[in-house]
């Protein structure tokens, strides 16, 4: 087992590839993005799959470092061979050393609010993508018919007409988070 510490932040990285999404969402996203690129929109993906292992490491490092969670009671996760409890020089468990190592992980991850353990991203059913365009956008909808979007804003974050096109492909917008699209809008 490897002790907790900032080196864990490089393990289980967040993907920005649609190849890591779960079917049938992967195909739906690829068709939607292809239609967007074909229409001349600018597409910038920031996240697709966030591995559950990463969410686990982020969640418990934050709870140990900032919320007083007992490192000895962190549940194990298959595939993550981490030792949360550090020892003092005499071999006894050291809560301060454990908390310090967890805090280094929090800083390495850049955590400012308690991370969730699971989400549409950890399932491979969500994508964070910025979509923008200039002028009118003529895009082929899921049925292959051209739709011209003349409304503003010219961004995926706020344009209801584009969000309707995305829904036709099975890629649904979550209103509260500017770049977030998923299987069900959550």
């Amino acid at each position, binding site marked *: 087992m490897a002790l907790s510490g900032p080196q864990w932040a490089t393990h289980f990285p*967040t993907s920005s590839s649609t190849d890591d999404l779960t079917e049938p969402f992967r195909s739906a996203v690829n068709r939607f993005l292809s239609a967007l690129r074909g229409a001349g929109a600018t597409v*910038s993906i*920031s*996240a697709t799959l*966030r591995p559950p292992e*990463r*969410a686990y490491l*982020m969640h418990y490092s934050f709870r140990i470092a900032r919320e007083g969670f007992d490192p000895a009671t962190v549940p194990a996760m298959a595939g993550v061979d981490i030792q949360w409890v550090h020892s003092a020089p005499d071999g006894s468990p050291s809560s301060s050393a454990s908390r310090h190592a967890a805090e280094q992980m929090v*800083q390495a*991850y*850049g*955590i*400012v*609010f*308690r*991370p*969730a353990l*699971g*989400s*549409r*991203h*950890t399932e491979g059913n969500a994508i*964070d993508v*910025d979509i*923008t365009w200039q002028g009118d956008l003529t895009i082929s909808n899921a049925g292959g018919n051209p739709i011209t979007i003349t409304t503003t804003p010219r*961004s995926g*974050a*706020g344009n209801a007409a584009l969000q309707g096109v995305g829904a036709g492909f099975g890629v649904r917008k*979550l*209103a*509260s*988070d*500017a*770049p*977030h699209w998923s299987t069900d809008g*959550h």
Partner: protein
Amino acid sequence: MSSSHSVASRRIKLLLPFLFVSLHDPCTAAGKTAGTIASRLGVAVQKSGTACLYIHNPDLANGSPLILVLLSPPQSTTKAEVVRPAPPSCSSIDTSDADLKSYEIRSSGGAPLPATPSIAVSGFSGRFQARGKYVTADINQDGQPEFFRFCASSDGLHLTVWSRKPLRGQRRWHQYYYLGYDVEPNCTPAETRTSGH
């Protein structure tokens, strides 16, 4: 002299109804307030060891004073100042918002800057008051206190300022902060809507 004064008087009389409508038009008044507030409120957060400020104001000079409102109850304030335009470590908190400017900031009150996001207030010389667990200030100087809040959506935080009462008063300001990881959502629709203030 008297002739020009008379002409001026007639012009003022003609303009008075329009001036009255303008000063009492709530839309115009709200628009001015929102515009003022948007350039005076921002988000401060530590990123990769750098304290960063994100604000819709491209004209903050080095040394500009800031008050940071720490948002977790019990709320408090601390002082900071602008150091310079942001280095690359202050990566954007909302890539869909091209007008959001960023600066590096530092503590000016001796206390370390908070690790969690706070709301930064610039160009404000009024008082901050403690009301129970919350801090208020009359940011737009309309005689009503403004309250400071934040909540989580799925991928980010929503920081808001409200007049009179949080959630039930008028939302005066809103800024989204994309975290890049998942959090448990606890926002209400009023806190996340992007239209309005």
